[in-house]
């Protein structure tokens, strides 16, 4: 997994609540058996005017000029600013894969759906929860100044605006450690293999029906 330490990134505002995983990456793209290549189909139904299918040449499709991701001023954005309950719906990890593949490294919202939130950490994507008032303020500032960038420092757990205002955010010590160091979580867990084996052996004795 790619590590995340600090980032100074252009902000793209997506001013909708309850953005679901079907909107982030429509299901026809879930037929892929790969992990990469989902970026061009991120927000496919909002981003293009035609219906997207896997295997199409996306560079030849008509884009929806009104959709924020297509605005010239937000090209190259690495921070997605969103509203509450971002990522609700399915467990598809294709959603963070698509965001990551498009170039986003951070998503900021007042709240996230649980599985999506988890999935982000597994892919070097940092989901940040900030209070609704702060998110409101960031939306206003992004709209007001072109080229608006935020500085995200994971070690310090802060988001800093161009004017120097700084907001703290929460992250569990375990997730922070994994993300800062780009650690493979499976490898970490297997350090506890003996404990898992012992637990399993005991369970087998106590609840044998779970092992038939």
């Amino acid at each position: 997994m790619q590590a995340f330490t600090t980032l100074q990134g252009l902000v793209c505002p997506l001013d909708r609540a309850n953005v679901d995983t079907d909107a982030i990456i429509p299901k026809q793209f879930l037929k892929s058996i790969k992990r990469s290549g989902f970026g061009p189909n991120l927000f496919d139904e909002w981003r293009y005017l035609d219906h997207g299918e896997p295997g199409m040449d996306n560079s030849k499709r008509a884009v929806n000029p009104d959709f924020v991701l297509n605005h010239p001023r937000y090209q190259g954005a690495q921070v997605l600013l969103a509203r509450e309950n971002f990522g609700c719906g399915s467990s598809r990890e294709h959603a963070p894969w698509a965001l990551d593949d498009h170039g986003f490294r951070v998503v900021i919202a007042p709240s996230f759906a649980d599985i999506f939130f988890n999935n982000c950490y597994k892919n070097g994507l940092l989901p940040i929860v900030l209070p609704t008032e702060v998110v409101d303020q960031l939306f206003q500032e992004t709209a007001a100044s072109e080229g608006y960038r935020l500085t995200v420092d994971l070690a310090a757990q802060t988001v800093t605006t161009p004017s120097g205002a700084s907001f703290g955010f929460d992250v569990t010590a375990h997730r922070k450690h994994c993300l800062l160091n780009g650690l493979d979580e499976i490898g970490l867990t297997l350090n506890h293999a003996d404990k898992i084996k012992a637990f399993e052996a005991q369970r087998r004795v106590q609840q044998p029906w779970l092992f038939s």
Partner: protein
Amino acid sequence: MAQTLYDKLWHSHVVHEEADGTVLLYIDRHLVHEVTSPQAFEGLKLAGRKPWRISSIVATADHNTPTDHWDEGIKDPISRQQVETLDANIREVGALAYFPFKDQRQGIVHVVGPENGATLPGMTVVCGDSHTSTHGAFACLAHGIGTSEVEHVMATQTLTAKKSKAMLVRVDGQLGRGVTAKDIALAVIGRIGTAGGTGYAIEFGGAAIRALSMEGRMTLCNMAIEAGARAGMVAVDQITIDYLQGRPFSPKGEVWDQAVAHWRTLVSDEGASFDAVVELDAGSIAPQVTWGTSPEMVVTVADRVPDPANETDPTRKSGMERALAYMGLQANTPISEIPVDKVFIGSCTNSRIEDLRAAAAVARGHKKAANVKAVLVVPGSGLVKAQAEAEGLDKVFVEAGFEWREPGCSMCLAMNADRLEPGERCASTSNRNFEGRQGQGGRTHLVSPEMAAAAAIAGHFVDVRTFA
């Protein structure tokens, strides 16, 4: 100290705990389907790792499989490749059970697990699918995971997790005639919102829940994820135990007795405290119909489409306006005047035998309305299909002009050929009414199987309680 059911399930699976409260949680049952597993199998192989415990895996193909012309196989080459990839992976790795495409016991993973007794009380159950919450009906700690976690579970038989808060949704009283578990689920989501359960594991309790069959409890727990909850669950009682007796993977003989004795402890203790409690009276719940593009946008069949003009919160207001535009609806339209183009009876929410019986009871002796282009009835599994046919339900549907299909996810998410065309309006027994969920531009209204069947016959939504 008095413990909640969730406390008991959690604590009995903790293998290791970090200082920050992150734990390694042991996983008993791993359900696998074709869409979210290929990258996990590949990751495992690339890292040279072996699956930890093959006998924990139960797999089936459901999302991509067609629901008609099975003799022709899977026509879409990309779908076929995904299903064949699962076949190959399971062949290589192994599993306790695999129900491939066309197998007699193939079906939607959340229907297949319970009906085979592969979902047992006290288990942790995971699957790369958000509706894994369904299995909580059996007093399991069951939730959806992403593909990285699928790989993590395969490699280590554990997940890293943090404990959620506990919410009790207590539904007392008695459901009226024609009102179902689906209506309870939608009423709860209407009350607390799609983010209302975020950060919580929900236990459903109260007299109305105790009175539900296992099928009803599964419908309810299935929708817990739509309320934002990590998991939904119902305590064990005699109904749970009776359901499990004699299922293929249920324990037998002496072990059965031992298991039942343990299962009976899987209830919240008297006086256990919850972080949040939501109370509803079952008697006051009417049949529900969603009008928008989120399950929380729901009213009763007797209501009208809400008016954004009455909403003061600007984000909510613009969300309502966008939803109405997408759904092609005018504010204040009576729900019962909304015509439907298609009807879908199926999905892991409502495709079990009881759902099909309920829909057939409404459809019996009627014909679908002329304005309804198609009514798809898609059983949740091959076993459900066989049972329904043994009871003659397929004939009732066919005589009513409905289509009787092969099992699978079908038009719940439209990954196969079953889908809405742009602008088409559907009464659906599934769980998500998001934009494009049932096909790009498609408009979904979530309802119970009874309400869906009634809409098919009337041609528009109609209160099933007064529908003859």
